[in-house]
């Protein structure tokens, strides 16, 4: 009896997990199916590439090229460019930073308040320094920065580092600035509110 039960269990188990090898016709069907899946995958990738937004130079999402005249004096009020959604801040220590003008809280646009020499967000009151550093309010971090490349007249080139620190001008004359509004740096971790 025990043997019969074991046999039954064995038979059941055996029936359940036997997978016969495919015939040639069946195999060919699987290969066709796999090739179609591959094709659909490639088509899908092509469609995504087709659908992805295009960024034109000079429009938000693309690169803005500006001359040295657009850089304000050290410590002065920032130069705001609504078309690019950024502010160019020339800090007191002669460094340059380009801030993304959208509040890190919920997306409103903080404006520069000259009387208080800081950015103040009209929606929920978040406040930021000239260099984008968080002061107070419900925002989770300082203002984001755009990757900027500064071309100096002496031929040197400086680019924003991965942490978004200001670019040291060191007294050099600027020939041109490229601001890539498609490439944004967030302040994270320990530096989030710095």
């Amino acid at each position, binding site marked *: 009896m025990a043997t019969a039960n074991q046999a039954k269990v064995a038979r*059941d188990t055996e029936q359940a997990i036997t997978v*016969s090898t495919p015939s040639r016709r069946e195999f060919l069907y699987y290969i066709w199916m796999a090739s179609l899946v591959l094709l659909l995958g490639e088509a899908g990738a092509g469609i995504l590439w087709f659908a992805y937004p*295009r960024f034109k130079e000079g429009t938000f999402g693309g690169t803005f090229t500006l001359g040295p005249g657009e850089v304000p004096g050290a410590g002065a009020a920032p130069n705001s460019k609504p078309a690019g959604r950024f502010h160019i801040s020339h800090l007191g220590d002669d460094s340059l930073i380009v801030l993304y003008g959208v509040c890190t809280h919920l997306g409103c646009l903080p404006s520069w308040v000259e009387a208080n020499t800081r950015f103040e967000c009209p929606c929920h009151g978040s406040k930021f320094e000239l260099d984008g550093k968080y002061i107070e309010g419900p925002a989770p971090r300082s203002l984001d920065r755009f990757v900027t490349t500064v071309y100096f007249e002496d031929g040197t080139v400086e680019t924003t580092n991965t942490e978004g620190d200001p670019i040291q001008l060191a007294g050099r004359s600027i020939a041109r600035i490229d601001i890539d509004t498609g490439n944004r740096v967030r302040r994270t971790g320990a530096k989030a509110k710095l």
Partner: protein
Amino acid sequence: MSVLPFPSFLDTIKEKGLKKAVYEGIDDVVAYITAGMNVKDIREALRGEAPSRRPNPRLQPHADSFWLHMRPSYFHQDMTGVYPTFRLGWLSTYFVVFETITGLFLMLWYTPSPEIAYDNMIAMLSNIPFGKFMRDLHRLGAEAMVIIVFLHMLRTFFTGSYKKPRQFTWLTGVILLLVTMVLSFSGYLLPWDQLALWAVTIGASMVEAAPPADIVGKNLNLLVRGGPDMGANGLLRFYLLHVLLLPALLFVFTGVHYYKVIIHGHSLPPQKENIGEDTAKRVPLDKRVYFIPDVLTNEMLWIAFTTLLLTVLATWFFKAPLESHANPQQTPLHTVAPWYFLWIQGALKLGDKVFWGLVFPGLVFGFLFAMPYLDTNPSRRFADRRFALTVCFVLIAFLMAFTYWGYPTVGVATSADKEILFEMIPEEHAGVLRPIPFDQLAPGAYTTAQLEGSASEAALHVEEFTAMLEETGYGATMQAELTANPVLLRIPGGKLNWSVIPSTSPELLHALEELEHLMHNHKAELVNPFGVIIVTQDQETTKRVDVVVSWDAVNEETGEVTRQFNSNQAYVHSNSEWYER
């Protein structure tokens, strides 16, 4: 005793072991998705074996699933080949889906506003990956669909498949033909270039003719165009027609049409049935070809193959045209209706636009709608339908004649000089001169006189020509006209120096020969003609090409002969690459 506080899959694993539980779970999911076929059933079908259980699991998806519900679970063997249907009905449906998908993609980048639409077209052609490809596919599919639907109608007529009880199927088919043509027409406007605007304006003007013109025609026209002429409102209305109303009608009527096809069954080849009998639904067991797996896999193959063919055609052979921006204040010479409407444009040249533009097409389509109810001959065999087939061939002959008359070269020809200049440098397309490679446009002044004799005598003939221009004063007149406002050609050195076309410019020589050929074709109207091509270059990357045609105009009353000149010009940039078009 459950593993978790509630019954779950873990209990099944505990009971049967992991492997068995997973396999059975997969089996159940597959059977659920396919609405009736488990893994074993699918594999058997793929292997070409008979089903191992009854009722046949391959029929259940047809009964229980949405997608397969309207598809027949088996076909008659005689209807699965290319003959007698040539798969044209299937192809028509393929194109409905194909156009919907490509159209949806194009909708991502298109805005139906006269200010934006043309820029969108340029962006699609140059700045979006696969944009040009998608547009070419959509245009190709549209033109192919009109042909395929028409051929499908022809085939249905030839095999007599419209006869009782399938008259209503035919009727819905004619509706689908109409919807297809209006879809194609409404889409034609969307690029908002010269071709789009004027071809559609001509078509829409037929609506204006609907009698009584000052009540019905006028208001119908206003409704269709959203204004007295085709502008922003018209473009929006045509866009909505094209992407909403007409596709909705298309889907509904395709559903009705296909449903009727399946209800009655595909009519067998006429030879295979007794006259007056319709045995399509009673398919003998030994003649059945089941949808799963044979027809399904066959259809997948056809989808892949047709898509491949369309891709190859759109990549290497077919280019959708784009002319210059729509200009409501200027109609280009030889504006052509889309080819499937040439027959109406031809008819319109015969006389009154109310009759030929409205009544005549109305009669044609009215006849098509009524035909199955008028034709009560029960036989579908060719030999018994000589009258019907004759009528069909006569109508096709008329269609071809009307289409030919629709071409702009028939009846709309203007003066010979304008026609020649149009061929050489048309307003909107490449023409003969623009596609010449930039480096072969050698700056200089060339004349058809060099072609008068053999190649070795060319220089001699050019010298004679120069002398003739001096003696007659034609040279000075021509130069004065070319340098006057607004033509304003800047001639280097102030004088035209006639020369033979250099051997390094074979394409330019070919163009000169073409000019000579065109003048010869119009020799009845042009007395003592000569043709001239002048190439000048003011900038490194831009050249200007002028064509001049000159002839003697004879005043019929006084007999006075005056020399006439007419010219046309084009600027070609080194990057223009007109030969690519």
